[in-house]
């Protein structure tokens, strides 16, 4: 890109933000082009990539600082760790599937369901708030709702004589946690699917009807296939989102719920036997799972972009 300016014969040295008299001739190799990006990339390298790589590298490190596969093996063999992964994966799957399903229905309702426009704006704003409400305050809110002395618990008891805790229900396990996680999974789905639903052009529906199709034909042959990459991609995002959550679970019960994130947190706080390699391996497992999720999400997003232009 050539932006012309009068060229001085003695270009001044460059400092950020200065008026720059001489433009570099066309050529991206000129180092002046990179100035603005140096701080950004430097930060990313030091505080994002290096720590991540060190995790990978040190996963293979034993407490005696020798190379070993023991840590990786432990993930698949040690009962505690296997359970943690099972629990994390279960919660993530449940909340991804549930969040995707109901979140999609919610998005559909406010965007295409014929409801007043103001409801859509409200839902979008609220979704932005709700998805940020995660963490400690969310845990407290649900304790007040379905905890031992929660509003719903008391209401069910007084209005229906039904004590849910008698049945062994508690929010302090993965099922209860799933209910809580939905609070930020639904909104995330709504926020991401809203633009995708907007992308469904009205004319496709009309063309379908014009050719003799019903609503069923429209959804079966056109709308759902077009939306599928977005739906799946977002579901994967939801999965990763739940898998990496820490604060909410911790606020519930400290280290008593056995999740991978909680385990890693425990390692950091030195609660468990000091085995740095193990923590690394756990972290590595997480990063790999999350990596697959993001890759899957990105690939599916690509496919959508190809169709909806």
């Amino acid at each position, binding site marked *: 890109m050539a932006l012309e300016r009068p060229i001085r014969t003695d270009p001044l040295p460059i400092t950020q933000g200065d008026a720059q008299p001489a433009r570099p001739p066309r050529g991206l190799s000129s180092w002046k082009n990179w100035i603005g990006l140096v701080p950004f990339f430097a930060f990313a390298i030091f505080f994002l990539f290096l720590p991540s790589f060190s995790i990978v590298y040190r996963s293979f490190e034993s407490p005696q600082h020798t190379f070993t596969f023991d840590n990786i093996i432990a993930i698949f063999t040690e009962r505690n760790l296997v359970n943690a992964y099972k629990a994390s994966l279960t919660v993530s799957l449940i909340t991804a599937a549930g969040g995707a399903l109901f979140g999609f229905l919610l998005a559909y309702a406010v965007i295409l369901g014929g409801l007043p426009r103001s409801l859509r704006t409200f839902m979008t704003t609220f979704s932005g708030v709700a998805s940020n409400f995660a963490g400690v305050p969310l845990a407290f809110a649900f304790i007040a709702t379905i905890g031992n002395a929660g509003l719903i618990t008391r209401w069910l008891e007084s209005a229906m004589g039904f004590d849910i805790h008698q049945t062994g229900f508690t929010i302090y396990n993965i099922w209860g946690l799933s209910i809580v996680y939905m609070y930020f999974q639904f909104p995330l789905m709504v926020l991401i699917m809203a633009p995708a639903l907007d992308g469904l052009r009205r*004319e496709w529906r009309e*063309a379908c*009807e*014009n*050719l*003799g199709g019903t609503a069923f034909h429209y959804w079966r042959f056109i709308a759902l*296939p*077009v939306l599928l990459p977005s739906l799946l991609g977002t579901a994967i995002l939801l999965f990763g989102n739940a898998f990496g959550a820490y604060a909410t679970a911790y606020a519930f019960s400290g280290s008593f719920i056995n999740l991978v994130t909680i385990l890693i947190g425990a390692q950091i706080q030195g609660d468990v036997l000091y085995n740095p390699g193990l923590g690394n391996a756990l972290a590595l497992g997480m990063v790999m799972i999350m990596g697959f999720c993001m890759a899957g999400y990105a690939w599916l997003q690509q496919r959508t972009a190809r169709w909806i*232009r």
Partner: protein
Amino acid sequence: MAFLDLLRLSKSFGQADAVVNFNLEIERGEFVSFLGPSGCGKTTTLRMVGGFEMPSEGEIRLDQKVITNKPPNQRKVGMVFQAYALFPNMTVADNVGFGLKVNKRPTEEIRERVREMLSLIQMPDLGDRFPYQLSGGQQQRVALARALAIRPQVLLLDEPLSALDAKIRVELRYEIRRIQQQLGITTIYVTHDQEEALSLSDRVVVMNAGRVEQIGTPFEIYNFPNTSFVASFVGILNQLRCRVIDAASARLSLDGQEFTADSPLKATATEIVIMLRPEEMHLGLREGENQLSGTVESVAFLGAVVRIHVRLGASVITLDVLNERNLDLPRVGVSVTVSFPPHACWVMAEN
């Protein structure tokens, strides 16, 4: 009772009247255009025929049967949208065959019909492409094939060429007409481009602000407009304010220069507005024609036509001359004589 009857059609959106008292009888196989500026109600009327808007009042009859309130998927009308509306997740062949698939036709029949349609639009080898791999013109042809595949009784086109390049537009417009005549299908074509409307249609309906201004053949609309809106919307129009010298012999004066009109004028008129088309005037003297003198103000070379603005006293008229290779373009500031036959000018019916 014609093939497609639109009777007293009206549509209001709340307080706003989009279409008011639209009446039209269309014969089988006829190509009718709805022509008008944006917001004149032409698309709304079309969508009422297609079933995408419910009329506030009025009736639509197709082949003697009332279809006013039938849902779109039961009407057997084919619609081509301005934005093509091809289903992005299906190939060209699947798009074209969609209407038949939805009607549960056997696979073999669908395949044969698709093949037939693709060769009709002259794209026999592109059945496996996806819409995003096609150009705008190609997409629109596929949209046309898709609408025709179900053998509709009426074909509706909503500004189908607006989104395309000028050159493609001209090519495709004649394609559409050729196909329409080949199939003999009754067609309604909505456009704001008068060239399209005039060159393609059997009849043109000119609309303005929700109402019908005039219905007629392209020749009638252009040469015998009923209102000044139609006269000025279709083609370029000179409107000259003249003083009446003698009503009976239709003698008029334009800033001192006298000329004669064709038919006698109203006896009481003292001042009148005369309409004149640019192509009916010539530069230079012509025997037996009216002659006015003026100065050339500007000359615009448009290719096939040279558009000249000539100042006659207080008015400026536009005059079109056909291009010739040995044409001597008049220069700005030169004095010229403009001549035209008496029958070329007319007085608007409403004046």
